[in-house]
């Protein structure tokens, strides 16, 4: 392992300048729960670590336009402690809290989960379902990017040189809305998703689904937004036929690989199974 410099700037512009200046040899350090493991196994060999945890914007949760702006480096444990956030977006918070163990929760962030760009990242399908938007700060200023457009492949993002995700915006919810996230893992805890499904939906006064978004993880090179699956729900009361269509649409969207975590067949099958359960949890939440 080569010598490594460590910097902890206090504002985003400085962090971005450091990142841009290092010509690809620098890495952003949020919780480090992915990064440090990757460094230990020489998967990445940065010469500069830029710790963003001293930057206020990345560490705070603030209400904004009826929604929430969540700092990219806020650890999972703090998300769960924010009652208003947990009430508005229980699915996103649950997904974030599934990450790792109590110890990992003290560090692991939404920004890290997103920018690490693992197809199996738990919070990402939930954020996609929520219609979350990442605020990206770079040398050329600021831009807002839909969460589903951040990852471009395993370990790869659309972030340009010097760009940092500062925060993630979870929009205001219409009345009668709910979201949920479930993953399938072979064990009970501390495991990597074989499939993950996040669904957010809104109902009208009669309990008919008026809007829905379905996010799908671990079954393709990146987490996916599956419009066909959302279409299966919209206009229905989530009756059996709608659920069948949802499961079929979700399974059809899967293009997983056969690997040690599961075969194509199983992952495709289980994605449909999970989607039904997630939809019914979100539906119940929306009705409350």
């Amino acid at each position, binding site marked *: 392992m080569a010598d490594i410099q460590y910097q902890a700037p206090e504002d985003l512009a400085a962090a971005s300048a450091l990142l841009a200046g290092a010509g690809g040899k620098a890495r952003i350090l949020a919780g480090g729960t992915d990064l440090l493991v990757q460094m230990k196994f020489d998967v990445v060999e940065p010469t500069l670590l830029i710790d963003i945890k001293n930057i206020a914007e990345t560490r705070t949760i603030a209400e904004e336009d009826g929604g929430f702006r969540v700092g990219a480096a806020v650890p999972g444990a703090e998300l769960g402690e924010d009652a208003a956030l947990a009430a508005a977006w229980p699915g996103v918070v649950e997904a974030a809290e599934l990450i790792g163990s109590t110890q990992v929760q003290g560090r692991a962030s939404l920004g890290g989960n997103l920018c690490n760009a693992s197809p199996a990242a738990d919070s990402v399908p939930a954020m996609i379902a929520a219609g979350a938007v990442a605020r990206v700060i770079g040398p050329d200023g600021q831009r807002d990017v839909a969460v589903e457009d951040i990852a471009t492949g395993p370990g790869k993002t659309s972030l340009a040189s010097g760009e940092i995700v500062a925060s993630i915006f979870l929009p205001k919810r219409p009345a009668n809305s709910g979201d949920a996230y479930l993953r399938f893992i072979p*064990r009970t805890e501390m495991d990597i998703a074989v499939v993950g499904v996040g669904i957010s939906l809104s109902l009208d006064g009669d309990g008919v689904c008026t809007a829905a978004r379905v996010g799908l993880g671990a079954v393709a090179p990146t987490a996916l937004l599956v419009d066909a699956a959302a279409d299966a729900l919209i206009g229905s009361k989530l009756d059996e036929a709608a659920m069948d269509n949802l499961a079929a649409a979700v399974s059809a969207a899967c293009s997983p690989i056969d690997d040690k*975590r599961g075969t194509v067949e199983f992952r495709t099958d289980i994605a449909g199974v999970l989607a039904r359960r997630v939809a019914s949890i979100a539906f119940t939440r929306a009705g409350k």
Partner: protein
Amino acid sequence: MMDQIAEQISLIGQRIPKPDGAAKVLGRTQYINDMVLHRMLIGKILRTDRVHARILRLDISKAAALPGVHAVITGDDTPMIGIGVNKDNPPLKSGTVRCIRDEIAAVAAETEAIADQALALIEVEYEDLPAVFDPAEALEDSAPQLHEDKPGNVGLSYNISYGDIAAGEAESDVVLDETYDLHYVTHCCMGPGCVLAEFDAMGKLTIYSQTQYPYNFKMDLAPTLGIHPGDIRVIQPPVGGAFGSKLDVYPFEPICAFLAQKTRRPVKLVFSREEEFIASPTRQPVRAHIRAGAKKDGTLTFRDVNCLLNNGGYTSWGATVPYVMMRTFSGHFRVPNVEFKSTAVYTNNPFAGSFRGYGNVQATYVTATLMDKMAEAVGMNPIAFRLKNAQEPGEVTPQGSLLKDCALADCITIAAEKTDFLKIYAANAKVETGRYRRGIGIATSLHNAGGAKIHKSDGCGTILTMDDYARVTLITGASEIGQGIDAVITQIVAEELGVPMASITIVNDDSAIGPWDVGVHASRTTFIAGNGARRAAIKAKAQILAAASKEANVPAEEMELRGGHVVQSDNGVSIIRLDRLLRAMHFAGEDAELVMVTDYYEPPSEPEGDNHYGDMSAAYAHAAYVAEVEVDTMTGHVRVEKMTVVQDVGRVVNGLGIEGQIEGGIAMSIGYGLTEDLRIEKGIVKNPSFRDYKVATAPEMPEIAYHFIENDTPEGPFGAKGIAELPAIVPAPAIANAVYNAIGVRFDNPPITPEKVARALHGGQDGGDQ
């Protein structure tokens, strides 16, 4: 005025914390990994990345030239003298590599980083050779041959034949023909492989080792090093787990010694976790084909078993597990006609070692699920069918195991009663709808519980000394590898000598001090070393009471040791304080004596003779475990909710220790049955990390109910039997039987993963057997 010393509550059966526990919890334990010796270097091994290849060129010059590197060695520098059961595994390979873990070079350097750099500078060129990974294919004439002196790739064979299979088959009303595929798992010791070697200026080796058999370890290590076994001193710092994985010499140990020899400096070599998964032994995978029969009334008629073992590239203890498997097939339940054949076949896979349960994990997975299948085939319930075939006390198995105090029927009956088995079993089987289905299943097994005479001696030496303050030093040959022998021996000695447990120090970490012991294996240590400690304490007591008798003029038979005093047996009145007596004995001029006794305990058992016949253990024990599971029919996830343990333990010595052993065994067996799978594809280990190799974790643990059968086995220390392996053997097939009760599907290919269950339920290939 003499004190009256109250009679003490017996320590046997109390809940005694492990004496080494506090230091481990506080992080103060010094493992080999933590040790630093003056002038110490760090050793690292270069392993091949081929499964079968000829080494064309191995250039170490750049590595050797790197500053900070003190030695680079290859097979050209070290003798081609093999280690392991078949002596087929030279520590450093030259010429040919046969599996992915093969060691081809090693370096000693000033730091780990330099050692890593040096490894990267070694250049190797290969010519790949045709490889074979399946044992059946490896037996074919056209198969690549692995070892010149092992034609046909046959590593080891074990066969027995008792009775007449054809006659048994002729009288059968039902014959089942089943094939099981039992997979690779590995020990997953928290402490990875580690060794530290140092030669003194006179050429004698001190090796700090994780070994669980220090005395024969010297014998096995010496030839490949070309030194005399007597010139090896084995020191055993605390280990982070062993479970059988340290019952042989493995290449990294002599390699580390070679590096120390060459550099004349201490060298430490520590495995990475990845290396631990790839280059430590596995459990022996077995393909078992069994034909077995029964009469309509449930009487078993025959078992005809053929096992094919994937030996991998070299031979360690894994290939010898049929030795234990055959005892289960022939001796578990009354089976008049038995044939067992096994062949371990060389392939280009990594190889297996000994692992807690030692073949009985595999044999019991087969027999315990087969008993259920057979019960169903003859139309009996699983309990009645087992009771029908359970042996009575005093019966002898075909291989000659005398089941003196056989508690098999008791185990089954109690397990059925405590769980209301038959009622729940019948109710579960009726449920055919609903997302979650519940199942209950029973499994039983038999294991040696009084040592196992597989070597010329199954003994253990003990030395007991007492100082002028009545402090006891108990030196035993038996190693502590986390199983808790320190606590058990302390209890036994304190019980006999009437001294506080805190006054006893156990010494068992240095082969230059300790007397011989065969090693920690075969559930033997409490039984053998416990007996040794007890016999030594009894001898010390006799010496003390004889001296007290002289001193106080009271007949020795009328005194006993209690609370640190010699007391009168009838009224407990103190005759003399023990430390005072010991000083009086010590400073008695011409008659001076110290309490210093020795014992070598050899259990009354016999080695196997022809046809593997022999009463090889001084006691045998049975267990019946009942698993209650819930199967999620949508995801295929199996959750073990409760495990009811009924085990013949002879006598509980340490209540905490026994529960700890059983809990750990259950965790291991849940892993075997449900989650753990070391995936070796075309010779390559695909999941060498805890992320991808799924051990059972705390949330997977079920509620456990314990029911111990305590009949005081005559030869055991205070009646105790060895208990440690059955908990790792019996749960998995109980779970498999419970899964069948829940969903009507059999899995003869553990682990029973969600994927296999889901496929069996939702269709698709490669599920269970409907």
